[in-house]
């Protein structure tokens, strides 16, 4: 039996509270506030306290999906990414880089935002990249 406490940053507001996800045998079972963290100092709000709950929700997406004749079908990662790459490059070719846009996310990490931004500017060749800071 393994029981770990993994220090991480809360996924909700911008305060930047940290907490431990309690993981028992690979499953996130609870949240323990981090007492030594400079922002949260052992406290959390109700969302932070329950931040493990949606992680294992049975409605989570677990397979790549492609819509074929109006219905989603489960496909392999290779198929999904090959298809996506092909369609994106086709659009770039046909109607130009600025006919494509990217929405990045304030819920993803810095590294992920950087990669999406790089994909937009460096690969598709457009500055049409934004996220919901305004919303």
């Amino acid at each position, binding site marked *: 039996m393994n029981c770990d406490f993994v220090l991480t940053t809360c*996924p909700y507001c911008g305060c930047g509270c940290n907490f431990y996800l309690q993981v028992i045998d690979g499953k996130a079972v609870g949240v323990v506030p981090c007492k030594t963290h400079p922002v949260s100092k052992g*406290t959390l709000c109700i969302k932070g306290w329950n931040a493990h709950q949606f*992680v294992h929700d049975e409605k989570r*997406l677990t397979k790549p999906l492609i819509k074929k004749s109006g219905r989603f079908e489960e496909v392999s990662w290779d198929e999904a990414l090959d298809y996506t790459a092909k369609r994106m490059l086709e659009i770039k070719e046909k109607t130009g880089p600025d006919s494509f846009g990217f929405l990045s996310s304030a819920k993803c*990490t810095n590294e992920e935002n950087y990669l999406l931004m790089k994909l937009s500017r460096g690969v598709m060749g457009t500055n049409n990249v934004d996220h919901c800071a305004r919303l």
Partner: protein
Amino acid sequence: MAGLVASFGSGAMTNSIDEFEDADCILITGSNTTENHPLIANRILRAQEKGAKVIVIDPRKTQIGDLADIYARQNLGSDVAWLNGLINVIISEGWYDKEFVSGRTEGFEELKAKVADYTPDKIEQISGIPAATIKQIAEAYAKAENGSIVYCMGITQHISGTDNVMSLANLAMVTGNVGKRSTGVNPLRGQNNVQGACDLGALPNVFTGYQAVINDELRAKFEKAWGVKLDGKVGQTIMEMMNNAHDGKLAGMYVMAENPMLSDPDINHVREALENLDFLVVQDIFMTETAQLADVVLPGTTYAEKDGTITNTDRTVQRCRKAIEPIGDSKPDWEILALLGQKMGISNFDYNSPEDVYKEIMAVTPIYAGISYERIENETLHWPCPTADHPGTLFLHSGTFSRGLGALKSIDYREPAEMPDNDYPMQLTTGRMMFHFHTGTMTRNSPALHKEVKESYVEVNPSDAKEQGIVEDEKISIASRRGQIEAKARITNKVGRGVVFIPFHFVEGAANVLTNPALDPVAKIPEYKVCAVKVEKI
């Protein structure tokens, strides 16, 4: 953001979270702080406990308004007016900081002339805040040793959002409350990594660290780092992309962990826009309303299944650590993007870990250059932090502003884009609440949170409710020029007469069916906080 850039030269919280505790006066506007930033409310209430005056100006008397020393309810969208009014009182009473104004700012004489028109009586007319209260607030804030301003989307989500922010910056500069501890102009960021998404260049005009795409030198730097040719014109914002998609001028979109079908104004318009695309990719953890419209859905992971960094509202870069393996065949979002980049034939998209990516970020981003994974294991670092031995920056603009002199902007009050009329006689304002988050993707799938609030509601003032015979929990209709929804009434004095409030988290009773997509001309932020509606019994 755009407002602070114009006034100070950079757009982020000027000061850090712990500093609130030592302020003598904290002016909060457009922020429901206890519900939406509880740990910042904690510092503010600690300051109050030590004797600081807490002032709240908000159209809703939320919990922080109840706890405040002075609370004032302004009319929706009247912020420039009451802020000019405060500055007028401060200048005419001689409470302004003459040394700071002459040494560190420009535009004072023009500002003085402009605000002279905004007399307390005129302010009372426009904003509904009593003239005496304006004077009381002006005195409390101007005479404080360390006055701090806190604001959130209640200030920015207006067609005059940029003007509102510049007016707050005016107020801080006129009183010398910027560039030192426990002062400043502090926008609270509403999502755990909004600051980071901005810092990393997920914006149409800048690369990482606010390096402008139109700057040839900076663009050349990125061209060299990435080994590609880059475009030098500013891209489209979300709202522009949606409008272009609607008009058939955008062929495809890639949406990562966003749900514009619930978060954007005028949802019916958003649906038409997304349905009009030739190709839509959505990368998310649940089948969101937006994902349902996609051609390809890629299963990303939650924060619990990935490593990386996140930058909080006070510019601290912190770690997100992988706690469990990805659920099913889902993959961390960074890995999906790296794989897709490779599939698209780009060689330098070959990353083994988030730290690999982060090292590249450090190399091209001066404000992050000194913040390494290694250092943040042991230290709390706020950007800017340009070198490996730099201690990070608790508060900005000490000694000089990023743009040199602070710009005092002379600004006139403008009415919201849509005012009440005979057809739509009431006003709607929207926002968040404690128990849910943004579009509910995470919180509505969390039983403890769902138990607290299961469905949408609309706050109605008791007098309005009485007039229309509306009772608590009665399902009523709310309609605007853009659509109609139904929600249960909560009768409460939190909202003033003629105003209703709806949280935007719920797909059934979605507030953003009603909201007005009119944009701030500079920041392109939609006016979520005011539109005209009619409220009727069903």
